């Protein structure tokens, strides 16, 4: 996901150890991290650990409340809800991570180029960001799904294309602050090409804010996907995400409240975990604090 982070892990070791020791003092952030790791593991292992198969129906059973055989109950077709939530988390988390990566790539590149090149290029690029900021994006995504049909790929691209704006601003600000420091001047003096300076010297140094903001972007992407799926414009059956499960649960919430409560709980817990982790990372990695 964060390729620059992986490749530069060794170089930035002291900073990371420093940050991690600070993160360890924040119980909520650690809890968030733990919940997230569990969620992702469960999602990855779903095909092997799900108690029932995804399509398995039991019409004779119908909608049943939680029981020993179906921990989280079943829906009106007698499908095991735990299984459906597990498969839904694969979709929701995948959208969260993939769309965030799209946003990450665009935003970081955009921000680094605008910040480093500066001048007129910077002005034009950031004015473009300002303009996009002013647009009704949720509505635009709905428009795109109408025009191009509802596909997972479009959803990734559309959400990613929306969420990169703030990332670009943050990265640009960081790069502006960094570009007059000695190590960049040294790189320029060595005659390195611009793209190499940007990717090898600037990018690793803006990793902190990027990680913080990425952690906070993932929940908003998951939320946006659920929002669209809730409206019936995101993930289409037979696939399901948390959003479509919740939307389905809302229809029958008076008779079968468990069909609403469990998917909603899963979504909220995940959002909680990501937000707490993001806040914790901000406290641990914020350059303004870590310079003290």
């Amino acid at each position, binding site marked *: 996901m964060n390729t620059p982070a992986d490749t530069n892990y060794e170089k930035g070791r002291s900073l990371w150890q420093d940050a991690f020791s600070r993160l360890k003092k924040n119980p909520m952030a650690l809890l968030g991290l733990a919940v997230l790791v569990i969620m992702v593991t469960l999602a990855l292992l779903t095909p092997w650990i799900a108690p029932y198969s995804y399509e398995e129906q039991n019409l004779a059973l119908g909608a049943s409340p939680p029981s020993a055989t179906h921990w989280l109950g079943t829906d009106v077709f007698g499908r095991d809800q735990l299984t459906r939530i597990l498969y839904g988390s694969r979709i929701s988390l995948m959208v969260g991570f993939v769309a965030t990566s799209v946003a990450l790539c665009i935003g970081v590149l955009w921000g680094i180029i605008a910040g480093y090149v500066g001048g007129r290029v910077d002005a034009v690029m950031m*004015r473009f960001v*300002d*303009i996009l*900021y*002013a*647009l*009704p*994006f*949720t*509505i*635009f995504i*709905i*428009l*795109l*799904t*109408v*025009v*191009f*049909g509802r596909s997972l790929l479009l959803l990734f691209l559309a959400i990613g294309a929306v969420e990169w704006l703030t990332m670009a601003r943050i990265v640009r600000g960081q790069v502006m602050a960094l570009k007059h420091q000695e190590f960049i001047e040294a790189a320029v003096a060595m005659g390195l090409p611009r793209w190499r300076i940007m990717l090898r010297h600037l990018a690793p140094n803006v990793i902190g804010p990027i990680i913080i903001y990425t952690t906070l972007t993932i*929940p908003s992407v998951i*939320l946006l996907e*659920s*929002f669209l799926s*809730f*409206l*019936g*414009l995101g993930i289409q059956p037979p696939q399901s995400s948390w*959003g479509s499960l*919740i*939307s389905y*649960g*809302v229809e029958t*919430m*008076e008779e079968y*409240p468990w069909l*609403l409560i469990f998917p*909603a709980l899963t*979504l*909220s817990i995940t*959002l*909680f975990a990501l*937000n*707490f982790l993001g806040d914790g990372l901000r406290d641990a990695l914020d350059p303004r604090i870590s310079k003290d």
Partner: protein
Amino acid sequence: MLRIISQRLLVAIPVLFLVILVTFILIRLAPGGPFDEERAVPPQVLENLNKRYKLDDPLHVQFFDYLGNLLRGDFGPSFKYPSRTVTEVIYAGLPVTLELSCYALLVAMVFGIGAGVIAAMRPNTPQDYVPMSVAMVGICLPSFVLGPLLILAFGIGLEWLPVSGWGESPGDKILPSITLGAGYAAYVARLSRGGMLETLAQDYIRTARAKGLSEWRVVFGHALRGGLGPVVSYAGPAVAGLLSGSFVVESIFQIPGLGRFYLQGAFNRDYTMILGMTILFAFLIIVCNLLADIAQIWLNPRLRKNVSAGGRP
């Protein structure tokens, strides 16, 4: 001040034009014409339809026709329901959506600023933790979860409030407004806490305290104006979010607002309806951002000096 406003306006107009152009082109790119039915329409009928809706003109002629009509407030006919125009639908739905958004904004500002200020007055004490924890819950409970839960609790369980409609029975506006506003209240609480903390640490606040003013007057008379900067700059995006968030709330509470018509249009592939409403939403959001910008400059005189066009902090 006037110069700044006119500068912002000059930026807003090309943006709006761009939105209209892009939306228009996107809609024309859409696969399948608006008259594709289950069974094929006879070519003669299709030709007549195309002529009636002027779809056989060159694209740029169509675009400027449309633009001209827009300036006269005419959004054209609905492709799916020839009996009504997009303008009629907007007239019916817009007041409802705006009213809902206003109430939600009120909920967001009153509860958000209240909680944020209370928290900032005694940071890192229970007076800070409790409201901020509630705010965290608000951020993590999306409207499409909160709404149904409120319906289950207050509508179906306690039977205190009606669970659907808008202006039909007393109190039916309460739950939708809270549902839509809660998430934003949470953000506003966090923003105003941050802004207040920063402001309360400044010299002029120390001066105010040194004068012997009551804490109440220090906070509300002096600090609030500076501390609300982040909230004001968030207000523009918040209104944008409220307007699109109203889609979900309108569908949960069966409110006959714009969002419901927009979704209907999306499912029916009613192109003119979607086109018109996208433009309307873009217009509303651009106006709100403009107002937020102006409010921010009015609140913070330091911004008046070096304003480059369109630049927001």
